[in-house]
């Protein structure tokens, strides 16, 4: 039986951040994640490193945390943060009073602003609606959540951290009323094992209450679904926000080769069962079009939804709930860390690990804000000019992923999950959404003898079904054409249709 000091449940940004922090403080730990890294809200968010502007009027405390963490992350995580800057645009009819309060609060908190005329805003973002009243520039950035998690994990692994992805916690082991370990089961093989630890940290986001319940505790939380749309190219090189109280569809974030527009906010009960509905797509698209008029004539390649784990409050409106975070001591050896946001993941990890050293009676201070994320030197970054040098045997034409890159990823994480390969290579992230390349990638895996053909057939079917769920709500225009082609390939040429 494996023993460690701290068991972290959850491989989102918070869990990965805690693993890195503990590693730097020299505390042994094991992280358990039921899927791949960033497969919950972390990977299903906007990928926005907030300046704090979004919260500055209604939640100044959260806004202050955002701007301070923003400045830290752009320093320590250069390869996963793109310093795009952001604009808050005021459209005709948007409240001037809100704008005044916005500027005043930014000044109080220390968020640098620059008020731009429409023509100066158009110089920065030519696609922006020319009839805006004005734009306020803030230090928003875009951030790659998956890469962020991987870099945090790099440090953990280097310093002896044990990482188990695709492992589900089946039981929290208690002795004399105290949590002393967990039983886990590996996703595909069903292999079970038990781990022992002195502290169990519940960093499972939307699944937090379920996890706490396994140890007899509870976490009061509200689950709120947010749906987003992905465009097939960058409509803007800056983050675009609507200058008004938070509402549906008021943020557009450039991310790698695409833009992400969202979100909605709808209460949900079960984080495992969320769908994007076509009226949400209509809503987000209509709002995005107000800020960037060409939005709806742009090809939309996919939709996705994540579940925000918000701390419960008395009021009914999800958006009025603080985006702050809280650490709950269940008094049984388990701590839950809940709420918060991607931007403040490091701070959350710091506070959680401060609690750990306090419990262990140690004096080890947090150093995660000073040390750059490890492993960035190996990242090429996205620019095509760099990748063109190694292009040979392209498997995914949309994202220019080579056979070598797929094989490297297979060696790195094993051949079992196509999602893992996609996260690590960007395979299938482009306009055809894996319509061509997934069949190829799975073929390569079986050719190398690393995957049984029957397994790859099953995975391909699962992938196509999941993929279709993501693109179905936004199917029109060129994406509809692409989809009919993909359908004719799999059902017409490869004979994969349901027969009878």
């Amino acid at each position, binding site marked *: 039986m494996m023993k460690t000091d701290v068991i972290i449940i959850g491989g989102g940004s918070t869990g990965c951040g805690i693993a890195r922090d503990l590693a730097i403080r020299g505390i042994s730990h094991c992280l358990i994640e039921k899927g791949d890294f960033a497969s919950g809200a972390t990977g299903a968010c906007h990928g926005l490193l907030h300046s704090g502007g979004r919260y500055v009027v209604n939640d100044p405390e959260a806004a202050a945390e955002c701007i301070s963490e923003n400045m830290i992350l752009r320093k320590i995580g250069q390869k996963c943060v793109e310093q795009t800057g952001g604009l808050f645009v005021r459209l005709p009819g948007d409240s001037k009073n809100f704008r005044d309060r916005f500027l005043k609060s930014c000044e109080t908190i220390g968020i640098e602003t620059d008020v731009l005329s429409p023509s100066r805003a158009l110089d920065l973002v030519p696609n922006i609606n020319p009839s805006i009243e004005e734009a306020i520039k803030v230090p928003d950035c875009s951030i790659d959540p998956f890469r962020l998690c991987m870099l945090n994990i790099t440090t953990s692994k280097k310093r002896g951290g044990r990482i188990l992805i695709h492992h589900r916690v089946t039981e929290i082991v208690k002795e004399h009323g105290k949590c002393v370990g967990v039983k886990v089961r590996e996703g595909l093989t069903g292999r079970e094992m038990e781990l022992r630890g002195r502290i169990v940290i519940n960093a499972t986001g939307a699944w937090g209450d379920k996890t706490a319940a396994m140890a007899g505790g509870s976490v009061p939380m509200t689950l709120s679904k947010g749906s987003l749309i992905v465009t097939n190219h960058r409509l803007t090189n800056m983050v675009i926000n609507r200058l008004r109280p938070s509402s549906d569809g008021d943020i557009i974030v450039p991310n790698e080769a695409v833009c992400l527009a969202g979100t909605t906010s709808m209460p949900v009960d079960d984080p495992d069962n969320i769908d994007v*509905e*076509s*009226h949400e797509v*209509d809503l987000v*698209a209509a709002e995005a079009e107000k800020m960037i008029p060409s939005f*709806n004539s742009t090809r939309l390649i996919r939709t996705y939804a994540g579940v925000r784990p918000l701390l419960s409050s008395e009021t009914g409106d999800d958006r009025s709930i603080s985006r702050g975070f809280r650490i709950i001591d269940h008094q049984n050896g388990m701590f839950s860390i809940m709420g918060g946001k991607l931007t403040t993941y490091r701070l959350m990890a710091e506070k959680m690990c401060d609690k750990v050293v306090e419990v262990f009676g140690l004096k080890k201070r947090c150093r995660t804000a000073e040390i750059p994320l490890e492993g960035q030197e190996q990242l090429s970054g996205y620019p095509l000019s760099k990748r063109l040098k190694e292009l040979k*045997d392209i*498997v995914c034409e949309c994202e220019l992923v080579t*056979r070598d890159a797929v094989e490297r990823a297979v060696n790195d994480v094993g051949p079992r999950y196509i999602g893992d390969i996609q996260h690590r290579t960007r395979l299938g992230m482009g306009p055809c959404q894996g319509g*061509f390349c997934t*069949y*190829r990638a799975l*073929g*390569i895996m*079986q*050719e190398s003898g690393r995957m*049984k*053909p*029957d397994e*790859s*057939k099953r995975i391909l*079917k699962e992938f*196509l*079904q999941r*993929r*279709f*769920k993501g693109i*179905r709500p936004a*199917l*029109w*225009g060129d994406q*509809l*054409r692409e989809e*009919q*082609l993909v*359908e*004719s*390939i*799999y*059902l*017409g*040429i*490869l*004979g*994969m*249709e*349901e027969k009878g």
Partner: protein
Amino acid sequence: MSSPYDVVVIGGGMSGLMAAISLVEKGRNVAVISKGDPVCCLSTGCIDLFSRGDDPIGGIELLPDYHPYRLIGVERVKESLDIFQDIMRVAGLPYVGDLRVNRKILTPFGTDKITCLVPETMESADCDPDEYIHVISFKGLKDFYPSYITSGHVNSGYSIFDAGVSSTSAIAERFEDKDFLQEFISWLLNLSLPDGKIAFPAVLGTRSSMSIFNEISNRLERDIFEIPTIPPSIPGERLFNRFKNLFLEKGGSLYWGKEIASVEKLGGRIEAVTLSTRGRPTRVQGTLFILATGSFVSGGLYASMDDVRETVFDLETYLPGERKDWFNEDFFIPGHTIEKAGIRVDSTLRPLDSEFSNLFVCGSILAFTEVMKYGCGHGTAIATGVAAANMCEELL
């Protein structure tokens, strides 16, 4: 200015070319206008007539009476496919099959595809579960993985040949080289394969596919067959190229790579279309017009967020419900509601509610064709293409 064409066909896919060939064979002066290579080049090259049952003609008889097959009548459908087979035999790319019995061909995924007429290179592609199949592939070919097939077929094996090139198109072109073909055949003979069939991805040549196929088969003294790959598909390109060349050989005029910029109307008729060509625009005048621009993939129809539009004449289009209902939730159940979209026509293939009296419509742009639902892609293209030509012939 040149004299008007008897018929101007808009769309150079299966349906448009089938109509055009039928007309030029009767001595008509015909022009075909196309944006570029059609969807046919992405297809398997097989003719699906009705693939959701054992008997294609029997299946067609049970279709709703507004389906294009039923509009033109089952007898006409049969006649048109006979014409197609005659044309292809003469053109040196013979097709085999029985209109009353569907057949199976092996796919690159190891499943069976149900279809009706197949090129001769796929005649042996229906395999008994216990007969030995040896699959040949090519080094680096990213669109074909033999293990997808061999894993589902107990009695099988595979070998990989290094052709020096690795895309389907490039390998197919290599086979046109006689020395390469001999080298390949020697390699095959040296494998000393057990008795049974040999399967190849469909890359055995472009222009000379039949002679290449026959030579390999004769030298190996056994049944061989091709497996159509994902796009670009060589059998689809062979079919299209034969069609296009046939049309040109019979004296047809081709406006290739051209889009229609404007339409001239006169008294309820289409007088001419103008093509956006470099320099001065080209005006193509016709007595009759056939619209064969296909469905969404080829661009005959375009879906906006809440509507479907016909892209050349802005014809009245049938829209099947709201966007949220356009697609099923299950990817693997063929036939989404959106497939019903298209141009509604009467039994003479004239669009309903249209101002034009000299326009006929054929192919997958027709409403209710539902190509995936019924598995009737090239079948409806051929049948309605011939029917549109016949309608024109009656008027000329």
